[in-house]
């Protein structure tokens, strides 16, 4: 997998109206692998927080017997964080406006996760 393919996969995510940025994050250490973010978004912070929340959520879902999370969506007053874990251990992350089409972002994140597997 190369940087060009990662970039293309993220571009598909950011083309969805309302998406402020997308990135590939190492799920294990929360480091940025690739990113396409609007100005003002702090990539390293988004990556670290997404990885940490993903890890805690995975533990809770595992304890509930539901398996490893395939998609999660944090809904906030001022926006949303959407994440799809890829098979490679990478996380595909999007930051979006509150009124974004979540279903469409989910689809693009899943496609990007296929590229990142």
């Amino acid at each position, binding site marked *: 997998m190369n940087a060009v393919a990662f970039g293309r996969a993220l571009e598909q995510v950011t083309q969805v109206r309302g998406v402020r940025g997308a990135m590939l994050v190492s799920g294990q250490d929360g480091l940025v692998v690739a990113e396409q973010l609007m100005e003002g978004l702090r990539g390293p912070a988004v990556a670290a927080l997404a990885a940490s*929340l993903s890890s805690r959520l995975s533990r*809770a879902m595992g304890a509930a017997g*539901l398996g490893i999370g395939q998609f999660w969506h944090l809904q906030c*007053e*001022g926006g949303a964080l959407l994440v799809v874990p890829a098979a490679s251990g990478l996380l595909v992350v999007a930051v979006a406006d509150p009124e974004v089409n979540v279903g469409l972002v989910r689809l693009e994140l899943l496609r990007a996760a296929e590229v990142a597997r």
Partner: protein
Amino acid sequence: MADDVRSLSAELAGDPQSLVFVRLGELLRQRRQFDAAARVALHGLERHPHLADAHDLYARILADQRDFERAFDEWDMTLRIAPQHTGALKGLAFLYFTVGDLAQAERHLEAARAAAPDDPSLEQAFLMIRGGAPPPAARAAEVDGGAAEPVQALPEARVFAGLEGANEGLLLLDSAGLVLGGALRSPGGEDVAVAVAAYLAGVSQEATRTAKLLGLGEWRGLAAEGPGGHIYLTLPAEDAMLLVVRERAVPLGRLAMLAQRAGQAARRWLERQR
């Protein structure tokens, strides 16, 4: 009544397009033959998907089976087809009452009264709501003034009494990750409430930190899909979390709606405890 069922069944067999299925389904429901009633209602709905009375019938059957979430959807559909349908308005009033949303319950009863001012069962329903009496446990349709039978009150001590899946898949916990109410079992049947609650305390703290540091404001909900089911986590009060877990067949959007209803019940329960 058995003769009526036989006669209506024969009539329906002779003319599968007949609307007699509504009467047949209702008779079976009154006899508490819910599986047979549901089959009749569903077959009828296949042939008459835009018949409001058919959706109302199916909603009553679901409510009798305590599947309140799906009953809500069916009555909601009834009103989309026929906005003045009194059966659906009264049914939804009942469901709102069961989750403690008295304002919505009263609003639906008012709408029913505007549509059917001479309906004597409405006064009884208003009295029940305004008096705060416990709702019937599994006889939603009796709000409609049918043949009343002794009914059993919902246990007030249960946080989610009256909600679909109240005994499993709804968990209320405090900010420290201790269980306040509800129950949660793994798909294998194991009681996992305490373990999951403990992990969720960390999830909630991390969600709060994430939303704050990313400048996204307060977080309102966290939805997640897993191969074994879907979850929705929300904050019904400042110091409490609510988890809803359902099988994968339940879409996340519907899960959010259920969480909203369960959150109302949780808030009322928390207020009573304080």
